[in-house]
């Protein structure tokens, strides 16, 4: 019940701060555009004047893509046929679980790290807004909160990286080495397949668990104006372990919303023909709506978690 109450409260609060969600969306879009512009020019230079352009308008020219991949460098290497629809999501999910994000081309990595730091900065603003009795987005209130908590959140982020590295790199390597041993001694590929899936799920949920714990650490810092970041993190662990049902229940409920939104997007995306300008435009709008929805869900998570923390405390 606790979960449902705070889940719906969180939804309402997010609804009241739609402008804030939109701001986050714009930041996401703007940062992405920094890389999208060179990608556009790269594609245009590659096939804009060729007959390949006509084929790429109607569908996908696999032969062209092989040329582009073989001759491309840096950012160009990230363009693959699997970026379409479900592929984009699965690529990122697998890169996340296998910690391959950090092997991305330098430009993507720089933008990614910049986005993380921006996110750390903005998180203070988000939580300040949700900390109001009646959450309402004001630029002044938002940026004041962001500035107030940035240094503490930044340290918190560095602490969290210890856990992320432990789980994402060291544990992953350990599990992979077990998997290799099992695979080397298997008569069929089925055992290593399922074991691989299990290990991936362990890493995935562990990483999300770390994220959730540090969400509560941030909430503690804001709600209780904590200065000791490390203590807040430790207490956040304690809080989660003390209330696993409600904290995890809420987290997974919102994760489920995230999954549903993603599935709906994949489904819709499959049916949009992009062979004419109007189709491209509609697809673009739906794609942006999808990203907006994901950011909404992220804000919903913060808001709900804050409400839950307050509720329990």
């Amino acid at each position, binding site marked *: 019940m606790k979960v449902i109450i705070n889940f719906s409260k969180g939804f309402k609060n997010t609804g009241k701060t739609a402008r804030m969600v939109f701001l986050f969306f714009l930041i996401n879009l703007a*940062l992405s*555009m920094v890389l*999208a512009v060179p990608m*556009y020019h790269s*594609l*245009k230079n*590659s*096939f*804009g*004047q*060729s*007959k*390949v*352009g*006509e084929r*790429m*308008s109607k569908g996908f020219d*696999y*032969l*062209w893509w*092989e*040329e582009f991949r*073989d001759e491309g460098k840096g950012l160009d290497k*990230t363009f693959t046929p*699997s*970026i*379409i629809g*479900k*592929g*984009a*999501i*699965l690529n990122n999910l*697998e890169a996340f679980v296998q910690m391959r994000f950090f092997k991305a081309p330098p430009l*993507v990595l720089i933008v*990614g790290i910049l*986005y993380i730091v921006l996110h*750390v900065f903005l*998180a203070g603003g988000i939580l300040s807004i949700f900390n109001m009795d009646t959450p309402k987005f004001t630029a002044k209130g938002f940026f004041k909160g962001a500035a107030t908590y940035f240094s503490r959140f930044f340290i918190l982020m560095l602490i*969290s990286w210890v856990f*992320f590295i432990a789980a994402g790199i060291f544990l992953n390597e350990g599990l992979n080495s077990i998997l290799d041993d099992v695979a*080397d*001694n*298997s*008569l*069929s590929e089925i055992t290593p*397949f399922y074991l*691989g899936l299990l290990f*991936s799920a362990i890493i995935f949920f562990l*990483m999300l668990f770390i*994220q959730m714990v*540090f969400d509560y650490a*941030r909430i503690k810092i804001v709600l209780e104006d904590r200065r000791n970041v490390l203590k807040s993190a430790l207490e956040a662990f304690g809080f989660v372990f003390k209330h696993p049902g409600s904290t995890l229940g809420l987290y997974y409920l919102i994760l489920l919303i995230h999954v549903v939104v993603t599935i709906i997007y994949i489904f819709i995306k499959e049916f949009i023909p*992009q062979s004419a*300008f109007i189709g*491209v435009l509609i*697809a673009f709008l739906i*794609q942006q709506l999808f*990203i907006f929805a*994901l950011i909404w869900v*992220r804000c919903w998570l913060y808001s709900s978690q804050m409400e839950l923390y307050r509720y329990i405390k």
Partner: protein
Amino acid sequence: MKKISLKEARLLKKFLVLGFISSITFGIFLFSSVEPLCKQIANYTMDLKLDTDKNIISATELLSWTNDTQASTDELRFHLYWNAFQNNMSTFLTEGERRSGRRVYKSNKEDWGYCQVETIKIMKNQFFEDHDITPTIEFRQPDNGNLYDQTVLSVKLPQAVRPDQTILLEIKFQSKVPRPISRTGVYKDYYFIAQWFPKIGVFQDGKWNCHQYHASSEYFADYGTYDVKITLPSSFVIGATGEHREKNDNGDGTTTHRFYQHSVHDFAWAASPRLLEFKEAFNFAPGKKTEITLLLQPWHKKLKERYLNAVKAAIKYCSLFYGDYPYTTATCVDPAYNSRSGGMEYPTFFTGGAYFLTRKGIPRPEGVTIHEFGHGYFYGLVGNNEFENPWMDEGFTSFLDTEVYYAAYGDPVYSKYYFGIPFTFKDIYIPIESYGGISEHRTTSDMDEMQRFSWKFMEEDSYGANSYSKAELMLRTLKRFLGEELFGKMIKAYSTRWWFKHPGPKDFYDVVSEFSGQDMSWFLDQFVHGSGKLDYAVSKIANQRQIQPEGWFDGKYQKSLHEKQEKALYESEVLVRRLGEVKIPVDVLIIFEDGKEIRENWDGQYRWKKFTFKGSVKIKTAIVDPEFKLVLDVNRTNNSMMRKSNCLAPLKWTSNWLVWLQHALEFFTIFGG
């Protein structure tokens, strides 16, 4: 397990020798229901027992070898391929490690394998007397002098084998089955046994063609009849080269299987108690029938139909394109995981390769199954020397498998595995021009020329790109250059004409030239003996207003006519360039804005060519090689140019890429702590 007694051994030997001699006397093909397809030069009658506790094969091999050349020889050479796995200093393993980082799986004592000849004796016949030649055994290293390598054995004969003479040998040997390193071995209870017996080399032009076993090389042997008895535990399901003629329960927990096949140059077998066996008779053409056997891993049971259909498609289309499949059996083995025996070919017997999760449109297991069956035509029937001309086997077979796959299944879809689960992208098809490996050719093949001994390529990737991809793409380019019908006749003639004859590159050149009516070495040499790339491009389209006379002409001033003209006249130009080294005549198609098309032909010799036109209509598009005949062209994108740039496609694909990036950034926020 019960050991064979001395008395039984003597009886067995007697039987083998009698059977062998009688088969020689009355014709080696006594047991064959079908006439042999060629001269049987190297005939093997073998009786072996597999000890599954020690992984030892103990065998007696009776070999009848006929000198089919005009020269005499007082030496015989044999391949002992499994000695490549007896220590880490063999040529196979040192090359493998150096070139591709391939390491010995594990160096436990029991993991190594070998083939040890215990005795080798000449048996009396009309040309020779009984003689034990075991003391003359020596190991040779003709390719690199690596004294640790014992993959080639030589014996001296007391007298030379003269042209057309036949020598009979009795060879006793023991082979230790290795843990799989490459292509063969035992993994748990799955045995894949190939290149396991002392196999005579090919005597050609007065010398032995018997190379050491190399990491990148495959095989070369003479044709003959194989009559092989295999004794192993009764619980084992077995498949092998040729017809499964007999199966006798020995009453001691073992069963002896007899396999027989004439007109082949190798014999391999696979056995495991877990294998599921499916048999099906297949009529692939009127009056033409073969029996398909599928040995399947139990966890791939649901792939049964896909495997069987692939074998049927391969038999049907190969028969159509390259000549009727001449054997009565075709056995496909689904290899065990970790057995490293997948994707290999042996006469009438081959391995596929599957993953328990697959989807429609993903060519797995079909692609590899068709490919390995297809080898039966080039490695098998034509009998190319895979050591020396790898492209003539791998390239022709890759070409064959692509043609058969596309004829039977259409374009495969692009797929990707996430967490081991296959996902297909239904709107993205892989065109035939790509399936052949243009990407590998583009990135690697200029390291070497195609015609190299298989172990002499700069690196493993270059061996692959040249032997598989470039050769396949060359054949597809040739097909489009000659036209489908002519090429079809030519390739079928090459295949059937050269069955059982070990052709070399020149023999192929001759057939191409004969069918095309001209000496085609100018075409083939550029690929076979060249490492240049093929790249034609449209570099420029220009539509300029025609220059009108203006100024003083013979004392008279003339004003420009431009202003007076209602309709502009243009001097249009298309610049076509040859960016690569390969020169082939090529068509250029020029399309004007009113839809009019002009087709020009360029000999492609010089580095560039300009085509100019005068008229009132501008050029809209120019395409060099509009029919995409030159499949080896490394850059197809630059083959066409449009006057106006297409902005929609870059926009569309940037927006698709953008959402991937935006979504990735959202994942990054998790690391925000």
